[in-house]
C-alpha cells in the first residue's frame, strides 16, 4: 500500500459554495421528480395539473394570510422534526412525537385553566414549562422501558400515542369540558397564558421566535458540544461509544426525554399560541410530517428548519388545493413521501 498525500479539506468561498450546491442538487431533483410523478396522476384523473402545481407552491406567497398560515404550520413542524432527529442522532427512533405533543398540550391546558387568573409574566412561563414537563414524562416512559427492559422504542413510543388520545378525550370530556363546543374541547386557558402576538391581523403568535431559538440551541448542542458529540457517537456505534467511556444507555434515555420535551413544547405552543384550549385531534398529522422532515434532512439539524419551512408551504398549498380544486390533500402527503424516497435513493446511487 503506497502512501498517498492527503489533500487538505477544500476551503474558500467558491469551493464552499460548490459543496453546498452539490448537496442541494439531489434535493432539487427529488422534488422535481416527485412533482412530475404526482402531476401525471392528477392529470390522468382529469384535474388541471398546472393550476394544482401553482396552488401547492404559491399559496403561501400570494397573500399575507397565506404566509402567516405557513409560519403557523412551520412552528409545530419544526419542533416535531427536532423531536425526531435528536433521538435519531443517538440511533433511536422516536415515533411518539404525537403523544408527547398531546401530553404537552394537556399539561399546558390544565395549568392554564387552573391558574387562569395569574398574570402573563407568571402564567405563560408556567404553561410552557408544564408542556415541556408533560412531554418529557411521555418521552421518559419509553426511555425507561428501553433502559430497564431493552424494549424497542419504536413500539413503545407508538403505543403511547394511542394512550394519549384517550387521555386527551378524558381531559376534554370529563375534566374541563366546554359545553358550548360540539367537539371534545376544554374551556379556554387564562388570558395570561396566551403567547403575545407579533402581528395582530392575521394573528401570528410569538411561538415562532421561541421555536427558532430552540432549533438554534438544538443545533449547537448536537454539533458543537462534547455532550452532543457523545450523542452522535452513541448513534454511530453504541458499542464503540461504550468502550470509550460514554454512558450509552443513559444517552439513549436522555435523547428520548429531550425528544419528548421538544414535542411537548410544540403542544404547549399550539395551546398557548393558536387554540388557547385543548382540542381533540389538534395533533393533526404533525408527527408523520415531522418524521418526514427529519428523514429528508437526513438528521442534520441545520437543515431541519429549511426542510420544515418547505413542507409547511406544501401543507398550506395542500389545504388550498383541496378547497379550490377538490383534489384530496392526501395527494400532497404522497408527494412528500416520494420526495423522501427520492432523496434517500439519491444517496444510494451516489455511492455507486
Amino acid at each position, binding site marked *: 500500500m503506497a502512501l498517498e498525500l492527503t489533500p487538505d479539506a477544500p476551503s474558500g468561498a467558491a469551493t464552499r459554495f460548490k459543496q453546498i450546491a452539490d448537496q442541494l442538487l439531489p434535493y432539487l431533483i427529488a422534488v422535481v421528480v416527485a412533482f412530475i410523478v404526482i402531476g401525471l396522476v392528477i392529470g390522468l384523473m382529469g384535474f388541471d395539473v398546472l393550476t394544482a402545481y401553482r396552488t401547492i407552491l404559491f399559496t403561501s406567497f400570494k397573500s399575507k394570510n397565506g404566509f402567516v398560515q405557513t409560519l403557523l404550520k412551520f412552528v409545530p413542524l419544526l419542533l416535531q422534526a427536532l423531536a425526531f432527529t435528536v433521538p435519531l442522532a443517538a440511533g433511536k427512533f422516536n415515533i411518539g412525537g404525537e403523544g408527547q405533543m398531546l401530553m404537552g398540550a394537556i399539561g399546558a391546558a390544565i395549568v392554564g385553566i387552573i391558574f387562569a387568573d395569574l398574570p402573563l409574566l407568571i402564567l405563560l412561563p408556567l404553561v410552557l414549562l408544564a408542556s415541556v414537563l408533560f412531554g418529557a414524562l411521555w418521552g421518559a416512559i419509553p426511555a425507561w422501558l428501553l433502559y430497564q427492559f431493552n424494549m*424497542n422504542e419504536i*413500539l413503545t413510543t407508538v403505543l403511547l400515542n394511542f394512550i394519549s388520545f384517550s387521555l386527551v378525550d*378524558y381531559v376534554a370530556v370529563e375534566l374541563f369540558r366546554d359545553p358550548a363546543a360540539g367537539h371534545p374541547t376544554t374551556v379556554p386557558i387564562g388570558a395570561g397564558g396566551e403567547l403575545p402576538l407579533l402581528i395582530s391581523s392575521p394573528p401570528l403568535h410569538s411561538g415562532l421566535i421561541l421555536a427558532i431559538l430552540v432549533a438554534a440551541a438544538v443545533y449547537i448542542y448536537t454539533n458543537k458540544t462534547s455532550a452532543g458529540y457523545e450523542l452522535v457517537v452513541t448513534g454511530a456505534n453504541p458499542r464503540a461509544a461504550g468502550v470509550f467511556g460514554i454512558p450509552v444507555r443513559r444517552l439513549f434515555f436522555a435523547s428520548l426525554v429531550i425528544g419528548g420535551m421538544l414535542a411537548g413544547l410544540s403542544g404547549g405552543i399550539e395551546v398557548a399560541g393558536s387554540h388557547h384550549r385543548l382540542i381533540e385531534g389538534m395533533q393533526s398529522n404533525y408527527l408523520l410530517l415531522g418524521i*418526514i422532515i427529519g428523514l429528508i434532512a437526513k438528521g442534520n439539524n441545520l437543515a431541519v428548519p429549511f426542510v420544515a419551512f418547505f413542507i409547511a408551504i406544501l401543507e398550506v398549498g395542500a389545504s388550498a388545493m383541496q378547497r379550490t380544486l377538490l383534489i384530496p390533500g392526501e395527494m400532497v402527503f404522497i408527494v412528500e413521501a416520494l420526495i423522501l424516497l427520492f432523496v434517500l435513493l439519491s444517496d444510494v446511487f451516489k455511492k455507486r
Partner: protein
Amino acid sequence: MDQAQLTNFAKLVILAMVPYVLASQGTMLGGRTGIFNVAQEGIMLVGASVGFLAAYLSNSLLVGVLAATLVGGVFGLALAYFTTTLRMNQFVIGLALFFIGLALSTLLFKFAIGVTLRPPLVPTLPNIAIPGLAQIPFLGEVLFDQNWLVYFTFIVSAFLYYLLYQTSFGLELRAVGENPKAADSLGVNVTLLRYGTAIAGGMLMGIAGAYLPMVYTGTFTEGIVQGRGWLAIALTFFGGWRPDFIFLGALFFAGVEVLALRVQVIGSVVPYQILLMLPYIATILVMMPAFKGVRAPAFLGQNYDREKRTQV
C-alpha cells in the same frame, strides 16, 4: 358469566385474533430472513381500503381479499427491493412505506367513493360451520363455527410452524436470518429468500387489513386499524418470533381487546377512556418480561452485502 356468554366471549376472542395473528406471522416470516418490517399499520390500512373497495365494486368478498393480498405483496416487494437490493435502512424504508400506505388508503377511498353521507357497505364474512367438528360442545362452536379467514389463520400458523421447523427449506430460511453469510457460503439463495418472505409477509398483512371491514365495520374508515399493526410487532416479540407462540400470544391480545369492548358496552364505573387505553397498556406490561428473555433472529433489521469487506 353463564355458559352461553362464555362461549360467545371465547368466540369473539377467536374472531378478534385473526388480524393480529396474520400481521404478526407476516412480520415473523420477514424477520426470519432478517427483514424487519415496521410498515404493518400502513399495509393493513391499504389492505383494508383496497380490500373493501375491490369487494364493494366486484360484489365479492373473495375478490376483495385477493386484491388486498396483492397490494400487501407489492408493499412487501418494495420493502425487499429497497432494503435487500439497494441496501437502504430498513426502519426508514418501513416508515416511508407506512406513510404511503396511510395516505394511499384514504386517497383511494376518496377517489373511488367520493364524499357520501351514507357509507357504502359490504356484507360481513359469513360463518361456515365445519360438519362434525362444529358439534363438539363449547370448543366446536368456538373454533369451528367461524368465517373462512379464521380457518385460514389456523392453517397458515400450523403450516408456518411445519415449514420452519420440520423441513430443510425451513432450516435454510432460518439460517438466513441468523447468519446470511454462512447460508450464502453454502449455496442458499439469500436474496431470493428475503424477497420471498418479505412479499409473503406483506400479503399476510394485507389480508389482516382486509379482514377488518369485512368482519367489523362493513366499510372503510380512516381509523379502522387502530394500532393493530403496531401491536402485531409487539406480538411478534412476545411470541419469540415463533409461529406457534405467536398464535397463542394472540389469544391474549385479542382477549384484552374483546374484554375492553364488552365492559364498555355493559357499562362500568371506570371511565371508557381508561378501557380504550387498556390494550396498549396491557401490551406494554406483558412486553416487559418478554423483551428481556426473547431471542430475536440475530441478523434482524440488517442488510446483507456479499462483497462488503468491512461488515459492521
